[in-house]
């Protein structure tokens, strides 16, 4: 069988409503950016799910690995002073 290609892999991020975050929806195959964008539109917004789309070539994504997990994320677990609920406020103080 001769060589074939299903074109390149792209990751699709959809913003559901204007002002919201773009959230990963899945991937598509496409040879260029325009095609990736249109394919994403035709596949991931068939039910009116989108107001904006980003597409990124999959091989451009740099991801943390499993072995990074502890050193990346555990050190932030004890920094509870970053959260507003850490602070004790005097009775009666409002709008703070």
């Amino acid at each position, binding site marked *: 069988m001769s060589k*074939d290609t*299903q074109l390149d892999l792209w990751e699709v991020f959809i913003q559901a409503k204007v002002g919201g975050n773009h959230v990963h929806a*899945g*991937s598509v195959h496409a*040879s260029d950016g325009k095609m990736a964008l249109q394919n994403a539109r035709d*596949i991931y917004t068939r*039910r009116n799910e989108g107001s904006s789309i980003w597409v990124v070539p999959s091989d451009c994504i740099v991801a943390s*690995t499993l*072995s990074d997990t502890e050193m990346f994320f555990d050190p932030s677990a004890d920094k509870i002073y970053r959260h507003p609920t850490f602070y004790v406020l005097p009775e009666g103080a409002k709008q703070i």
Partner: protein
Amino acid sequence: MDVLIAGTSFQDKIDHDINIEPKDVMPDEYRTHLIRQISQHAHSEVIGMQPEGNWITRAPSLRAKQILLAKIQDEGGHGLYLYSAAETLGISRDEMIRQLHEGKARYSNIFNYPALTWADIGAIGWLVDGAAIVNQVSLQKTSYGPYARAMVRICKEESFHQRQGYEIMAHMMDGTADQKQMAQDAVNRWWWPALMMFGPHDSDSPHSGAAFRWKIKNKSNDELRRKFIDKTVPQAEVIGLRIPDPDLKWNEMKQSYDHGKINWEEFRQVINGNGPCNRQRMQHHVKYHEEGRWVREAAEAYKNRLKQSN
């Protein structure tokens, strides 16, 4: 080493219902099992477009035409979500299609049966999608993250498929004598193949052991089949359709239906390539894959041209 750093082994995660993700360490057998199952599932969605596609141009109303087209399009989309899920395991779509064409990968047996009349479109939606949904709902909890997430999306979208099929059946059972006869005939032909979709009985199922241990599957073939029968029989009764199984009986003790003997010889024949449409389905897929080759090559060439001009 990775396993030690993360502190949790593969089986620990499985046992604690923590999803396995693409970059996690996993046994080769788990990966192989998933690739086989997910690609088969993806191929089924794609090949499944053919029997229904056969009726798009003959749909008897514009509304029916829209619905059918949208439904088949969804199936293509579901195939695509599943191919993507399989790709995260390190197999390309190219390779999966090659395996399909070489007969190394399978697709659901049910699509080797022909869609002969418009009532078959109703029966496929009601019975075939109905059976598929039972299976897919249980797969939403499967242990491999990308597969589980694809199933969640698919189940959400599939919810209208079974309804549209049932609506067609109900409408025909409310129609002329010809229409009623057509509807019953379709049920007669699709009922048993739909039951076979759940696979061999638990006692004869070769892959079940590992699939359960790894929580790829969480319900057995027979459990799922029973669930399907129990919900479908009353739906048939509501619209006056007969289930073509003289041995079908409500079992008060089990609170479930007992069904007649499934013809596993037919199942084996169809799986081994001797169903009414095996050759036709594969020829169609190969033909259009080949006919599309020059288009994909043009797209690649255009991409390279863009790169050079930048």
